[in-house]
Every structure is written in structure tokens, then in C-alpha cells.
């Protein structure tokens, strides 16, 4: 064997171990029957999963996460798609590149900085401690993912298809809805899934703008770690991981079908 493939193999294994190791290590604990979060596992039970749906605080946080996640997905997909359409195919001018950077900025700005700013601003408009406030905050960080996904999908839409549609009698809005968007749909859907995942995962902004009523699953896990390290956290994590895997598979399936 030549050295390069071996190096690749070793490197790849390390990457996989680092990425998946912690998950594999912690997941079995979600099935423990003890109240402590440590090995060895004395016995197996599903009590911590039951806890997730029975305990008021956990149940509420799951409902909140789904609610806020859905709201964020709708809003971010709408805005991100509009932005991608607006920025599409434009010559590299100062205005366009500035706008693009502004849209992508939330990806790189530290969440703490964003959070402080939002808290101050939301307070002014009475948006702190509201669902709408949390959804807006999450949307800010989710839009870049939609923009990136939809932009690359739109790049794959041949302008000649749109010209063909126009020459066949389609007015610009019809071209958009019957040709451009359907062809870019896989990108829009994966953007939407990214937006949902981003919202589920978000903690920092939530800490700043959400009140006790908008406690999300991620936030609840965060709080539980500080208060009492219960295995319910790991159960919640397991739910997260399974959810994420399902989402990714859905994304793959959609791409496959549309390709």
C-alpha cells in the first residue's frame, strides 16, 4: 500500500472518533436506571425518557422547541429565499457584496454579542420574553444557512430555462413560481431543515431574549446541567441525536429524489 491512502485512512478515523466518540460514550447512559449520570450502568430502563414527557418542565420545553423551531423555519426560509433571489446573478458590485456579507454575518458574530444587542433592542419593542422575540432571534442566525443553500440551488437553475419559459408566454411571476422555485426546491428544503436544526440547537440567544415561558429543550438541558446533573439530559440528547439523524436522512432522500 502506498503511504497516502494509509495516512488518509488514519486521519479519517481520527476525525470520526473525535466527532462521534462523545456521542457514543454518553448515549448508553440515557437508558440507565440510576439517578446518577455515570458508568458503570447498574440496570437499564426507559424511566428518563418517560421523565422527558411526564415532567412538566421537560414537556413544555419540547413543545416550545417545536413551536419556536417551526416558526423560525417558516420565517427564515421565506427571508433567506427572498434574499437569495434578490442577490442572484448580480454582478459583483459593492452593494451586492455588502448585502451578502450582512446576511451571512450572524454566522460569524459571537452569539453573546448578538444576544446582548437583541436583548436591548427587543426590550424597546416589548419583544423580550415572547415567542415572537425568540423566533426572530433564531431567524437571524438561521437565515444565513437558508441563504447559502438556496443560493447554491439557484446557481444550478439555468437562466435559459427561465428564458424558455418567458418565450413560451410566462410572465415573470409565473416563471418564478413554475420554473425557478420548483427547480430550486431541494435547496430550499435543505435550507429549511438547517433552519429548524439551528433553532433546536440555539442556547445563547435564547438565554438573552427568552423568558421562563419560552424555555426550549436546549435551554432546559443547559439549566438542568447546572442544577442537578440528571440522566434526563442524556435522554434529551438522545432525542436530539435521533431527530437530527432523521432530518439528515430526510434531506438526503429529498436530494436524491429531486436530483
Amino acid at each position, binding site marked *: 500500500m502506498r503511504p497516502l491512502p494509509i495516512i488518509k485512512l488514519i486521519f479519517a478515523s481520527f476525525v470520526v472518533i473525535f466527532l462521534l466518540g462523545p456521542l457514543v460514550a454518553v448515549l448508553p447512559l440515557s437508558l440507565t436506571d440510576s439517578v446518577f449520570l455515570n458508568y458503570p450502568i447498574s440496570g437499564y430502563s426507559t424511566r428518563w425518557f418517560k421523565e422527558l414527557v411526564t415532567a412538566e418542565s421537560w414537556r413544555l420545553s419540547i413543545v416550545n422547541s417545536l413551536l419556536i423551531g417551526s416558526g423560525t423555519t417558516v420565517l427564515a426560509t421565506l427571508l433567506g429565499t427572498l434574499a437569495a433571489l434578490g442577490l442572484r446573478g448580480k454582478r459583483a458590485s459593492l452593494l451586492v457584496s455588502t448585502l451578502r456579507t450582512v446576511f451571512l454575518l450572524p454566522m460569524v458574530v459571537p452569539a453573546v454579542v448578538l444576544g446582548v444587542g437583541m436583548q436591548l433592542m427587543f426590550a424597546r419593542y416589548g419583544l423580550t420574553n415572547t415567542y415572537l422575540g425568540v423566533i426572530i432571534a433564531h431567524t437571524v442566525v438561521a437565515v444565513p444557512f437558508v441563504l447559502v443553500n438556496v443560493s447554491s440551488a439557484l446557481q444550478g437553475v*439555468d437562466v*435559459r*430555462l427561465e*428564458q*424558455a*419559459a*418567458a*418565450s*413560451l*408566454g*410566462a*410572465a*415573470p411571476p*409565473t416563471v418564478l413560481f*413554475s*420554473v425557478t422555485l*420548483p*427547480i430550486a426546491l431541494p435547496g430550499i428544503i435543505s435550507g429549511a431543515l438547517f433552519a429548524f436544526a439551528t433553532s433546536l440547537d440555539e442556547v445563547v440567544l435564547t438565554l438573552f431574549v427568552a423568558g421562563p415561558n419560552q424555555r426550549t429543550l436546549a435551554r432546559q438541558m443547559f439549566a438542568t446541567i447546572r442544577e442537578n446533573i440528571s440522566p434526563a439530559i442524556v435522554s434529551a440528547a438522545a432525542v436530539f441525536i435521533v431527530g437530527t439523524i432523521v432530518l439528515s436522512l430526510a434531506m438526503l432522500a429529498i436530494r436524491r429524489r429531486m436530483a
Partner: protein
Amino acid sequence: MDSPFISFRQVVKRFGPLTVVDHLDLDITRGEFIALLGPSGSGKTTLLMMLAGFEQATSGSIEVGGVRVDGLPPHKRNMGVVFQNYALFPHMSVRDNIAFPLKMRNTPKAEIATRVARVLDMVKLSAMAERKPAQLSGGQQQRVALARALVFEPQVVLMDEPLGALDKKLREQMQLDIRDLHRRLGLTIVFVTHDQDEALTMSDRIAVFNHGRIEQIGTPREIYELPRTPFVAEFIGETNLLSCKVEEQAGETVRLTTDGGLTLSAHAGAAGIDGGKVRVSIRPEAIRINDHAAATANRLTARILDAVYFGDHMRLVASVGEQRLIIKGDRTSEAAEVGREVALSFAASDVWVVGSCDQTSATA
């Protein structure tokens, strides 16, 4: 001729500093099949895009049926466009692709169904109606594109190198099909190509483009046999282009001396002679080998330098002194042997003056 159906008047198109279409005038008659032929980058697609409404002319006017269309958006121009890459909607079935222009015109459902069925039948794709474009071969996709551009009975059909991606056999079949449709439906077709054979065999008239201008426009026969410029002579078919000095002129016939030192009788050509130095074109197939019976004005002795077998003919390269000539020879020709000495003969009318030398440098 009738009054023109489509007319370009002094149309200019610039992209920044680049002039792509340069003060172009072109008239197209209703029902005509016109080919726009020219090298890459000569502005053919740009002209088509201006006609379809995807590009705006920098200046000049374009009229269709006596109405200026310059300000009209593409979806109101009622022109069928067939793109080089077909531009079929990948997310729609063949049927939906073809029904698209009818839906845009709010045609009743039942009528859409019958018209789509008819056109599918015409392009022999009825069995493929439910397939997606990706499940079709290149030739089938091409036919769908054609069907889609024809189903709404547009006043003009524009085609931009529609057969470029097809193999030779299929291309020839499609050429016949399109030609046939043109005759049967009386369509006006503007057909962009850079394949000279395609232009020659399909069109009523050919417009030869070069640098955003039309070098010559005429029937295929005029373009091939009576070229006005060296560019046209060279672009359509193969030819021998020779620079000559004019010795004397008597009506249509001129005596010339080539730069290689040959004396030739020539025809004054379509463009006429102005200046003492001209270029002439001699088609390879006009030169006869060892034909002593023919009474022709030009007789030369040459030596064969190269012979290549092409199946239906031999392509020979002969030298007469310094001058090289390409000859299309008989495939059984015994002369087709490298190193042989042969007698060449050709008529004065086959030595065709295609312009003066100064003109050449401007268009080359």
C-alpha cells in the same frame, strides 16, 4: 418579394466597449427559412436574443409584422424559441413541457390535451409523454423542444444551434424533419448554426455573419457559387484563395497573375473589381485532373503532394510552382498518387474574384 415580416434596421448591440452587432440591416419574409451562419462570437446568438426580447438593442429598431417590438417583454412576443441545450423543464413531464405555452395562454383543458397529443404525434413521441426530460435521448429531447416551440403556433420560430449536440446521423434526420415541418406549417424560421452544410441544405436564404455584420445574404447557391468576399468563400465550403495582380479586364473576364506566378483567366465576380490586386477563389471540385478533352481557359501542370482518402472522394494537394492547390478528386482517380505529374484544368468562371486585397485585410 413581399414586404418584410421581420426587419432589423441599423441594429447595434454593445456589451461595454465590445460591439457585438454592428449597424445590421436584415429583412426576413413571412414563411422564410433563414439561416444565420458565422464563426463563434460573430453575434448570431445575440441577434436572436434581441429578436426574442432577452437582450435590448443599444440602438436601431426591430419590427415584426410592421410593429416595433423593441420594448416588448419576451413573454408577449409570441415567438417559439429552441435553445441549443433544449432548455426543457426538468421537473415536468414531456406532456407538461409541451402543454406549458398553452397553459400560459389559458387554453381550455380539453383543447390542450388534443393539441399536445397532435404535436406529440407529429414529432413521434406519443409513447414518451409521461417521461421526464432526463429519461430521453438527446434526439428525443430535441424533438420535445421543437414540439414545445411549435404547439402554440407562434408567428416565428427561433432556433439557436438546435442540432449541435446530436450525432451526425440523427442530425441529418432532424434536419429533414425540421425542413419538412417548415414546409407543411408555413413557419417563419430563423435558424442559427455554424455548420455550413446544415445552412446549405436547410435554408431558403443564408446570412453569413462576421464580426457582427452580415457579409453576404443570399440563397445557398448564391452564397456558395457567387461569394462576394474572401471570408464568405472560405467560410462556406473549402476553397483555394489566391492573391493576384490584375493584368487586363475585358467585360466579365479578367486576366490575372497570381503571386505564385501563374497566369489565369478569371470571372470578375459579384463584388466587381476595384484596385490592381484582387483575391480569387477556386473551389476544389472545380479543378479537373488530366481531362484533356475539356476546352477550358486555364490549363496548368502540377505535381501531387498529398492524397487523402475520404470515402466518396480523394482530397489532393498539388503544387504548381510555388502555388499550392487543394483539389477534390475522383475516388478512383489514378492520378491520386503522390509525386505524379498531372494536368489541371478549370474554367474561367470557376476562378471567382472575391474582392480586392485591401478589403481582405479589413475583414480577415
